[in-house]
């Protein structure tokens, strides 16, 4: 701002004559007496012009922000000369800043006690003081004492965790990175300056509030899924100087607007005022056409699995076609009932992840003695991530149920939603974001046409995506139904994730059906 506090007076009192026509007098040692005599002189030449010096008693508002234009600043004082009262010898009062940080726009002397002033504060001015003076004709002796106000720099938004580690400024005309790009799920930490005001400003103020407004994109505060429980943390409070969040889905322009307000500090405090709103803009890159392709979709089968000390094995209702040991005994081989393939071109380095939520699972056993219905409690299927896989080329599910020979029929109805997520590895501070999901179901029944001693099981039923558009389930023949995708093309049952509610959440693991069986006897 230059030489703050030094009046920019183009005149010099020693260069003027007094009203008695005395010749130029040196300033120095006679200044005080000259001023006093001048102020007590009567009206000049009967013009109605009072040569008493102007005074400023207040300026409202008295807090101004860089880059802003103010058109209605009220200056209150005394001895202002209005244009109507002005004469050639006694022109209207001039009101002006003493520094170069302000660009005057308009000046209206409303009365001898009030001026309306307009000006613009240049954009890159730093926080400090500004002084104004009111000048009547005659020079320094008719100029008011400088009246100081606060000039505050505009807030600046900084990207505190950019991948390069440079913490660039991303708002305002001097932004070093005006329009950065992040990938979906990448943590964005924004900080702002100032967070406190300098103590050197003439009118003591403090920051009394901060406010963010985020527009565009789908944004959350956090998402840290675990097997135990998972929920979405919505956006954090927007009334702090900093902001940390994640954008979940691709968006061309996610704007973060920030403003702070100041308030008086102590008896000498200035006005309440708010900074201009500054804005940062991120582009969020992501998948353009993610999908889950489906494979297999076999019919239900009766597979005779090998038992061991831990499990008896024997006939098992399987969605898929397996041979070898029962699940408790070893590793079976064969074809899983349904296979899920992640599809899509990622926006950068990262991993596909699956998570499956069981929405319903029941097994009903019917026999001569009665019926047992075992019902699972919905929840996460097994683990997060599904089968603890990271970036698998595919994953699968083959729900099965052992078939106790004392039953005539065993029916399993399994409903689940398989979510496809992706997590960037751009840095350690990323969250998984959903790409979409497929609800699917397996409904199979095993019927015992033999006896308890010599069972003869047959299976019916199949599994498939649950079509939201009401199309019929596929019949197990690949390519025979729209629910089954052609190779390399998205499945029509795939639901792209687009909202916060599409982010998978659970309160815990699905509790197995065996934990809750209700038996009715015939």
């Amino acid at each position: 701002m230059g030489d703050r506090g030094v009046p920019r007076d183009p005149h010099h009192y020693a260069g003027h004559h007094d009203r008695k026509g005395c010749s130029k007098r040196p300033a120095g040692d006679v200044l005080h007496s000259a001023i006093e005599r001048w102020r007590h002189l009567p009206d000049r030449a009967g013009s109605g012009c009072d040569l008493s010096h102007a005074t400023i008693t207040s300026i409202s508002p008295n807090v101004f922000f860089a880059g802003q234009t103010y058109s209605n600043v009220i200056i209150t004082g005394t001895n202002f000369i209005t244009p109507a009262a002005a004469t050639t010898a006694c022109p209207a009062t001039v009101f002006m800043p003493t520094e170069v940080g302000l660009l005057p726009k308009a000046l209206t002397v409303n009365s001898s006690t009030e001026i309306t002033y307009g000006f613009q504060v240049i954009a890159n001015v730093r926080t400090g003081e500004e002084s104004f003076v009111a000048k009547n004709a005659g020079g320094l002796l008719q100029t008011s004492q400088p009246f100081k106000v606060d000039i505050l720099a505009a807030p600046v938004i900084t990207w505190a965790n950019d991948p390069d580690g440079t913490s660039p400024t991303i708002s305002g005309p001097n932004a070093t990175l005006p329009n950065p790009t992040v990938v979906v799920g990448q943590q964005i930490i924004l900080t702002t300056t100032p967070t406190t005001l300098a103590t050197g400003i003439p009118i003591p103020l403090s920051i009394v509030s901060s406010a963010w407004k985020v527009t565009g994109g789908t944004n959350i505060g956090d998402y840290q899924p675990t097997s135990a429980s998972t929920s979405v943390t919505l956006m954090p409070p927007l009334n702090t100087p900093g902001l940390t969040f994640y954008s979940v889905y691709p968006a061309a322009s996610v704007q973060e607007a920030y403003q702070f307000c100041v308030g008086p500090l102590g008896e000498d405090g200035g006005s309440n005022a708010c900074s201009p709103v500054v804005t940062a803009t991120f582009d969020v890159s992501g998948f353009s056409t993610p999908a889950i392709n489906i494979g297999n979709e076999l019919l239900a089968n009766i597979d005779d699995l090998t038992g061991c000390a831990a499990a008896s094995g024997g006939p098992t209702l399987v969605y898929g076609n397996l041979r070898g040991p029962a699940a408790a005994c070893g590793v079976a081989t064969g074809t899983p009932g349904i296979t899920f393939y992640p599809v899509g071109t990622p926006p950068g380095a990262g991993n596909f992840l699956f998570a499956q939520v069981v929405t319903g699972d029941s097994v009903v056993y019917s026999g001569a003695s009665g019926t047992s219905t075992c019902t699972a409690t919905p929840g996460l299927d097994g683990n997060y991530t599904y089968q603890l896989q990271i970036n698998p080329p595919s994953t699968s599910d083959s729900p099965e149920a052992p078939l106790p020979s004392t039953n005539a029929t065993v029916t399993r109805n399994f409903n689940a939603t398989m979510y496809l997520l992706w997590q960037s590895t751009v840095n350690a501070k990323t969250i998984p974001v959903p790409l979409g999901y497929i609800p699917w179901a397996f409904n199979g029944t095993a019927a015992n046409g033999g006896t308890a001693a010599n069972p003869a099981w047959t299976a019916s039923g199949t599994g498939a995506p649950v079509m939201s558009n009401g199309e019929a389930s596929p019949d197990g023949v690949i390519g025979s139904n729209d629910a089954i995708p052609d190779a390399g093309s998205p499945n029509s049952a795939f639901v792209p994730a687009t909202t916060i509610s599409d982010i998978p959440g659970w309160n815990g693991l699905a509790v197995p059906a065996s934990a809750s069986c209700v038996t009715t006897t015939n």
Partner: protein
Amino acid sequence: MKSINMFRKSGRATSEFRAWLLIWLAFAAPALACGQAAEQPFTLELRANKPIGVAGSQVFVWVKMTNVSDHAVDCTEAEMDGTLTSYNYDVRYEDGKSADLVDKSLPYSSPGHTGKQWDKCSLGPGKSREIELVVSFRYNLSKPGKYMVQISRRSSLDANGLRTGDWVKSNAITVTVLPANDPPTTQQ
């Protein structure tokens, strides 16, 4: 002085000894530390995600399987009733008595059991894999107290896919379960 001179003269032998010592430290020592024979193809290292749990909540532990052999080992999992049956579980109360099973009818002689096979998994030499196990679906951990948890896994599969071979045991860890109305104030 004589022995020193011998080492000075046989620098190559000393280097070989050091190399073998490093190899032993890298592979044999961890196995022995877990009470496992050096010839077992993998090690199991158990840790508790949260040493303190709350009664009634699901209790998880993590097991890190490390292939210390020179060939790939199977790491495929299978699941019955939410428990990974690829492992044998030994859960005991503080007094050493075995904790109560959730399902007294094990091994799976009653209705209602469901399971699945996980995708195939093979762990290369020197590679590790850490997975999460739910202990509370197999054992009733609703009673507040301290539980000692140890798991084991068969060292190999036979030609038919049945788990066979010696049991490879993990270290034992202690999980503390607090009453439901006295949850931990800090997460550990």
